[in-house]
């Protein structure tokens, strides 16, 4: 699995993604295969997770306070 992929990225449409909330889980899960939108989202989620795991897994810091 390639995590640090800066080639063409899947483009997720904001409106199409938000429509999923209206469709609901039962309807989207009736499809046999993950939808095209779903595939884009999953690709993006995995790439994002991998990019961050590549440097720490967490955006952690130890902030010096008083």
């Amino acid at each position, binding site marked *: *699995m390639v995590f*640090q992929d*800066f080639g063409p*990225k899947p*483009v*997720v*449409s*904001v*409106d199409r*993604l*938000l*429509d*999923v*909330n209206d469709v*609901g*889980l*039962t309807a*989207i*899960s009736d*499809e*046999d*295969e*993950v*939808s095209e*939108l*779903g*595939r884009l*989202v*999953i690709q*993006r*989620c*995995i790439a*994002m*997770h991998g*990019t*961050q795991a*590549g*440097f*720490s*897994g*967490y*955006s*952690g*810091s*130890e*902030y*010096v*306070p*008083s």
Partner: protein
Amino acid sequence: MSADLNDGISPADVDVFANGAVSAAFMYKLWEAERARRLLMLQAVRSNVKRCGDPSVVARFEQSWECLARCERDARPLFDKVLLDPNTGAWLMDFLLQSETSSLAGSKSLRFFPSIAAAMALLASQPLDLDVPLFDGELVLPTVGVLTGLGDTSEVHLQFDSRFSTLTVDGAPALAVDNQELISTPWAPCNWQPSWSLQCESSGLSMSIRLDDRHPFASSPHDRSVMDGRTFGEWRELFRDAWEILVTDHREYAVEVAAGMRSITPLPSKNLNRVKSSTSSDAFGGAEMALPGDATQLAVSLVHELQHSKLNALLFWVDLQHETDPTQYRVPWRDDPRPLCGVLHGVYAFTGIVDFWRAQATKASGGDQLFAEFEFGYWKTALLDVIDQVQKSRALSTYGRRLVDMIRRRIEGWAVPLSPPVSEAVERCYTHSRAMWLAFHSRPEDSSIASLVEAFHNGKPMNDDIHRTVVFDPNAWRIDARAVLERIRLVDPMRYETLVKDPVLALESVEGLTPIDICDLTDGVDAVATASRGAASDPRAAVALGASLASPVRDVIYEYPDVLRRLLNEPALEGISASDIATWMATGVN
């Protein structure tokens, strides 16, 4: 249109994220997007499970799925409560990766699915009839609570009888369910700990947050802090005061936190001089945090961690970099060199911190004001230094460049007059910590060193055209320890005097401080001798030597501590003292 732009999101859309706290309405929009994303992740997981080829795995998964789907259909707000729990995001990502890449049978994320479904069903008082695995002997029901004392078993059978509103565990009545509240029955065969929830209200603005101490997909089990009544009381008290600070002096951030933060995973408290906290890109709206030392620290940490979540939300839509950047950057908030994506997170998060202290500096008084001024001055200096580096990167996308440019403009417009002692302390601390980073991680190239040795022998001044690379030194730890001590000097001079007079106490109290630092702070002559002896082998000593000398020799050592160390190790310069080499370096560099 630039090739790295995504349709539907203009570069100007990034401005909402760059301009500070977002509105509650915008934050709810981010949650809606997060909800849709998680639904699609669930769909993908189910699709992968169906394809795994193991009928027993599919059958068990489907039992939980039916329960979950029923809740989504009949009780959406309660389904959402569990779905949008930050740690549900961490579980989902783990499940997704597992189901995409390896066998699911026996996987931790598959085993946790019934717990998710059961939590939803119980909140919604929906039918429930599931075998639910335990984790470390505990039955974790996300957002609801934890059952313990279940004996030596790996899973239990849960049934919810809606006629009597009772949850049975292996056939024995354990919990009564009353309007989403689960209450242990007197005859329960196990112990029940409801989730630790906090509610705060101030000037008409309220927030609710859970302290999620048992979730198996939160922090490492080795690094979690299990709550008890006493620690919960400490968190509750600190939250009440932190909320008051946020609402009173940082209302826009308070609005954002109320709409955006859902849970905190408590970490063990180890060090009152530092707030340990982090945010996972998978757990939107959550953070992991050790109990801070005071309410102001908690308030700024909430702002800080939510910045990370917001940036993660933005990163789902757009790329801030369009190609790999091999540069390892110097950032003052970490001991290690960082890649561009990590630096951008830091820049964004610390912008919230500087903004917080900007307001705090105008409202505090006495020692608190000095401290707020210091934090503002130090982190503003740090951010501008880091942004200077980042803006040179060719890997920034159109969005990334716009974000960084906007942040820079905002920060440059922030002016808080610093009192002279604070201004001096900021300068002293920042140059010192920068020098420490260079001493540990910067490496001059051999050709540059050879030229310098030749120049030294020929009596020529040092040429500052020195090629250097970054090599991570794992020994770099708490390299900003002197800055911690400076803060103490600023806000609590008596404590500072006690520490420098008692080196053992100082070394115990401030992590990363070394005897050479104490020596430098107490005895200038001895410090030069000690630092000179150690400078060749010890990065800290090289910087301490700089600290013990006057400008311009100090300035050149701070700029080139790595070069000084290399020269001290050159056989051709053997026998020449560190001070002599440093003095020579200062003659050639402007």
